């Protein structure tokens, strides 16, 4: 039984949500039914991912040949530690997001669109899972587009509550499509140069090519820029703040935890597994591009977060800064740097989803997310704000939280190569995180509630604590972000294996 499962789990983890989504769309209009199905499927998918992670934890690689056609002709799903970790993050985020979604979506979306939300959600999840699992460059593009198209729709669904969601989704659509186009052009260049799309095969054949091939430079440049758009790496980040701020709360939870991170995964996959750093555009050029952009992104993102007035937007900007941290580790191009990046990525997914869930709980109780309307909210929603505080501590990088481990490893990796300035920037940007988190904490705990805001409808019900079904996933994420700051075996162990295998592949 276990062996059969091991054989098919790499496909099951994606196909389950991918096939369920259209079925739900065709056969069910009842939002609760769709939600229950989606939750069940997500749970199964999560179990598959956990199973795969356990299987690959000893460094083993699972390969699944679609339709029995062997690679390089057939499509191959290849699960190594890195894929398995990403599958776990995406499936886990999807599960938590769905647990959270039922009450939140019921409140935020009109009844007619609720089942559409879950269908898009499932599609988006399966696209992201597919990117993580596939070993075929074109197939990766397809999955990237499935997830992106679904994400545009998810964001646009926020339009019933705030019309700005529509323009945010439209912005994202344009930017995302340009990114996808760049990416696929890069893949075509690779195909033209080597005649294969299987990524393992690609890597082998690239190394047989003469060093300095122009088409390879072009391919790498297109792929990096295309994926940087999807990651929202500075200066290609402008779509992100509004998209996260105006999407339905449950969509923000899922997208912030999974979407950009999968794009980072794709970038690492191409840079280290396919191109290899000694090949194509040399490591030094890459260093010179990624490190400064990552650092500027960290600083600018944090500055914008400090001055933002909309709570969801504060943390959307913070995401830009945090993505900069992850890119920093990649840009260091060292074993330590990669390890730090993946640990950071894992812990940030937990902390950020918890934060957006807490904000979603607030959005459930009141329409406005302006900081000035959050005054004294900790008195009305103590559990929500307590979990928020825990997650925010992890975001800052307080000791005994996951964020601390990530920052520690990252700073260590920077110092290992003697990058003083980078270590200093990491420290300074952590302080900036203290500032923007502090603004929310201060508003929630220390400012007196303003009572009814001028112009607000008098009939508005008094704020109360969010329902249990929303608090549960929130607290799970918040407590996990502390748990993985104390028992670091899973993220650090996984990241070590990933870094080792990438280093081996990069040689």
């Amino acid at each position: 039984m276990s062996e059969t499962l091991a054989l098919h789990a790499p496909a099951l983890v994606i196909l389950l949500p991918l096939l369920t989504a259209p079925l739900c769309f065709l056969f069910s209009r009842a939002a609760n039914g769709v939600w229950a199905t989606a939750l069940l499927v997500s749970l199964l998918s999560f179990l598959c991912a956990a199973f795969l992670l356990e299987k690959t934890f000893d460094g083993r690689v699972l390969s699944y040949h679609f339709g029995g056609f062997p690679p390089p002709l057939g499509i191959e799903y290849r699960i190594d530690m890195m894929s398995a970790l990403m599958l776990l993050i995406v499936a886990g985020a999807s599960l938590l997001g769905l647990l959270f979604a039922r009450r939140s979506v019921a409140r935020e979306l009109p009844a007619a669109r609720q089942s559409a939300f879950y269908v898009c959600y499932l599609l988006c999840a399966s696209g992201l899972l597919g990117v993580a699992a596939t070993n075929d460059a074109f197939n990766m593009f397809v999955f990237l587009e499935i997830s992106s198209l679904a994400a545009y729709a998810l964001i646009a669904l926020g339009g019933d509550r705030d019309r700005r969601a529509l323009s945010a989704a439209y912005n994202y659509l344009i930017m995302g499509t340009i990114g996808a186009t760049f990416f696929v052009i890069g893949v075509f260049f690779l195909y033209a140069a080597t005649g294969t799309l299987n990524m393992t095969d690609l890597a082998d054949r690239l190394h047989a090519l003469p060093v300095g091939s122009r088409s390879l430079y072009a391919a790498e440049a297109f792929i990096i820029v295309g994926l940087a758009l999807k990651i929202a790496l500075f200066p290609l980040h402008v779509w992100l703040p509004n998209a996260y701020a105006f999407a339905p709360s449950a969509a923000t939870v899922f997208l912030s935890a999974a979407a950009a991170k999968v794009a980072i995964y794709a970038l690492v996959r191409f840079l280290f597994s396919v191109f290899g750093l000694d090949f194509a555009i040399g490591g030094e050029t890459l260093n010179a591009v990624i490190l400064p952009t990552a650092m500027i992104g960290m600083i600018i993102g944090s500055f914008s977060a400090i001055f933002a007035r909309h709570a969801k937007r504060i943390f959307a900007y913070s995401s830009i800064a945090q993505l900069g941290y992850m890119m920093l580790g990649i840009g260091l191009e060292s074993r330590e740097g990669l390890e730090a990046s993946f640990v950071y990525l894992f812990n940030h997914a937990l902390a950020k989803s918890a934060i957006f869930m807490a904000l979603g709980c607030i959005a459930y109780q009141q329409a406005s997310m302006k900081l000035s309307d959050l005054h004294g909210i900790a008195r009305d929603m103590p559990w929500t704000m307590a979990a928020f505080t825990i997650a925010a501590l992890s975001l800052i990088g307080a000791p005994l939280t996951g964020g601390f481990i990530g920052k520690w490893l990252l700073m260590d990796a920077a110092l290992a190569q003697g990058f003083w300035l980078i270590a200093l920037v990491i420290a300074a940007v952590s302080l900036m995180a203290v500032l923007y988190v502090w603004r929310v904490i201060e508003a929630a705990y220390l400012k007196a509630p303003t009572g009814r805001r001028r112009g607000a409808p008098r009939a508005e019900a008094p704020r109360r604590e969010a329902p249990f079904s929303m608090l549960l996933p929130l607290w799970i994420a918040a407590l996990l972000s502390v748990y993985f700051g104390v028992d670091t075996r899973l993220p650090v162990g996984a990241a070590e294996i990933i870094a080792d295998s990438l280093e081996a592949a990069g040689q």
Partner: protein
Amino acid sequence: MQTLSLLALALPFLGAAAILLLGRLPNPRDIMMIAVSIGTAACVIALLFLYEDGKTHAWTLFALLPNLDVAWHLEPLGLLFAALASALWVITGLYAIGYMRANNEKKQPRFFACFSIAIGSAIGVAFAANLLTLFIFYEILTLSTYPLVSHRETKEAKRGGRYYLAYLLGTSFLFLLPAIIWTWRRAGTLDFVEGGILPGSMGGMEAALLLALYVYGIGKAALMPLHRWLPEAMVAPTPVSALLHAVAVVKAGVFAVLKVGIYIFGAAFLSEKGASEWLIWLACFSILAASLIALTKTNLKARLAYSTVSQLAYVILAMALATPAAMVAGALHMASHALAKVSLFMCAGAIHTASHKDEIPDMAGLGRAMPLTFSAFTLGALSIIGLPPFIGMWSKWRLGEAALSSGQSWGAWAALATLLLSSLLNLLYLLTIPARAFLSGAEKRVAMREAPFLCLLPPCLTALACFAMVFLIEPLGDFLAPLAREPR
């Protein structure tokens, strides 16, 4: 011993939970707190007696990263600090109950719970076996004392709290954490080891730079110019100022500085490389400048706060002299100043409770109405000034001795001159207060009495302890002697 030390660590945290649970029942809650504090102090004092030099007392809690544990150990300096914090917690605990009730302060459960957590993390800092563990508890200490500083929730309290967080978190993120990771990179370990872990892994310039990161990263040591948070924190209720901003928090700062000097750099390494010479001058400056500022302050707590800044710099001066004898003198000064300053603060609180007077000029003539309070204040002040026969004299004496034998040429004379000059300044800014209270203002009739019993007894006890400790100076010196031992 493992169980006992774990108990000493855990009791305050458990006590905090119990206090929150009993929140609505003031009497059982406060009795609970006193019981927990007595239990903690008993544990620590038992450890003090059970401790045997030469044996290793170290245990690991769990591994955070490979080769990086959260672990604790026992050594003389840490035991001394833990004993100070926990024993004074009993006394200040009693005082706090009296003070909080007499002044009708709000949110007492939160107050006492945070208080316990703060003591627990101070003990954690004391027992930490490596820099990482120390850093963790150091941060918990910062976060748990923030609600105490802005306890009153007024505008000034919030401002003070903001300063507090900004300075302490800012320095620890910007300087301390990079310094720790730098050390980790260089030495491959963060354990506190006799003789230090850095010797042989870096040159003099680098060591001096790293030392600067540590000294300023440990913002709780309040070395000028990063001292502003301490006076700002005086908006807290007086028991907080007494125990935390005279003992637990600031002493955690200088304790960490001493610990870094002894067990990370090693005194021999520092003096051989001359990496700490610059710090002597800076510490002297901090001592004198803070004393001069204290002279200008008319608010009693503000004056005491600047006096604390000045006295903390003595300990840093001791570390900067970088001889084993100086380190021991620094540790002694840490203890003697704690006892004296906690008495002074408790007296200030007693005066506030009885008369609601905070400004020194208003206190003229109060001495006749509150003789006990002002007598205790005088004793504490005499100890800080360093007059015999109080304990403060011995620590200063040893510090001067250590300075002369330190082999520093100009630095030693500067240190000695600073000691003398600052003692004079102490005399001026501290003794004028009881003098005015007892001697002037005779024409005014003051109709008031001493503060309530619970606010009065504790400062008298600690003030007497300043005197009684003199008989313990020999055993204490012997106990701390391992600090002065050359590494094997």
